[in-house]
């Protein structure tokens, strides 16, 4: 083993780093899989509440929910009060439920 490392130190180091990375990915697989959902879910939910609970105007609310990650699709169905947002390959909707309940992210 020490001979192998001695002969190919860089390859061995890269292999160890790769194994560590794979281990970390496995360990964090649940959080990593959920991560791409954050931007579209956050944007849909907080825009819905900004627009239909706080009653701010649409342009203000677009700025209000802006984050460092981009969103690729955005629709605001003003009749149904339903917001659908896509980003990082995932899509989420939030709907205004009523005067007391405000907005909720769809399951």
């Amino acid at each position: 083993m020490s001979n192998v490392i001695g002969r190919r130190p860089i390859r061995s180091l890269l292999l160890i780093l790769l194994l560590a990375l794979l281990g970390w990915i496995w360990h964090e697989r649940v959080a990593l899989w959920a991560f791409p959902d954050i931007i579209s879910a956050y944007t849909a939910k907080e825009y819905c509440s900004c627009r239909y609970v706080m009653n701010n105007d649409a342009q203000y609310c677009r700025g209000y929910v802006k984050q460092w990650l981009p969103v690729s699709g955005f629709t605001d169905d003003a009749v149904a009060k339903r917001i659908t947002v896509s980003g990082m390959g995932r899509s989420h909707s939030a709907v205004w439920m009523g005067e007391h309940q405000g907005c909720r992210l769809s399951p």
Partner: protein
Amino acid sequence: MFKGLSLLIILLLSATAHAEHWPAEQWSTGAAITGPALQALETYAFPARDDSTRKGIRTDALLVIRDGQLIYERYAGPTTADTPHLTWSISKSLMAAVLGVAYGEGRFKLQDPVAGFYPPLKKHPNLTMADLLHWASGIDWQEDYEYAPLKSSVVAMLYTRGHTDMAAFTADHGSYAAPGEAFRYSSGDSNLLSAALKTIVGPERYADYPWTALFEPLGIDHAVWETDDTGTFVASSYAYLTARDLARVGLLMARDGRWGERQLLPKDWVAFNREPFVHYRADQDDAVPGGHWWLNRQADGAAQPWPDAPADTFAALGHWGQAMYVIPSEHLVIVRYADDRDGTYRHNELLKLARKAFAGQVQP
């Protein structure tokens, strides 16, 4: 004649001095405040606002109640007196007030195990209502928001893995300490309280309970409180009130839970809210945790978190600069809504300037 008249004037003056003001449908207004101290406060709270960089102090609303009367309010950005503004974590203290009404109905005790009201917690059998109110569940929770999105329990709870059932998501976490032994600020703890309330008051009353128990008795007409898919109120984050309405809760707390003639929250409940958690360690957070409120008290050898405010000051605080400060000794309630996206804003600075502008000017 002259003697009688002066006696009448004295009587009228003393009646005015002792009359207790309460808001009716609207707040009554006190004498308007002007002058350099107010200017200094406004210069601090309302600098020019840049919606593209979103840097610096970005106050949406600042409102001051003194002796039960509205003496100052100013709005900025898109917010007006009619905006039910997102309170973020001020919701936690509002949930404490809602729970206080149920406590006054005799429906639970502080030392009751939460698992009795919320069975998914049976793997944390010794966790009590008081522990959750102290943010001392011992549940291994990560509260970071946008700076650590991968590890953040709160982001996962609100937007991804936990959003359909936030209390169950919280209960599913492991433990890092025994319940009641250590403080760790947790939005999950607040949502466990919200789930417990469902059993405490019964599922039929629960959906309207914040309104029937707290908002309607205080004359609050336009409160919104969002729920998850199970109908559990997102007690950690999602209550919305106008600044004027939130101040009503502040006045209730300033007057030890009494609203007019009615003791809406038991005095011992408010005393618990305002009692520092004994196992809090210095500098674990920006202020000292009480029972789901934040206190300006010395704790664990550390100085008061806000040295320019009296020691009886307490507050409900939320993300992005939301705050309601209650100063019973000075008869002040201060509501601040904001959209602060960086850490420039300082509670102590606002309190210092607001007290210079508003405190103690009605004393004879």
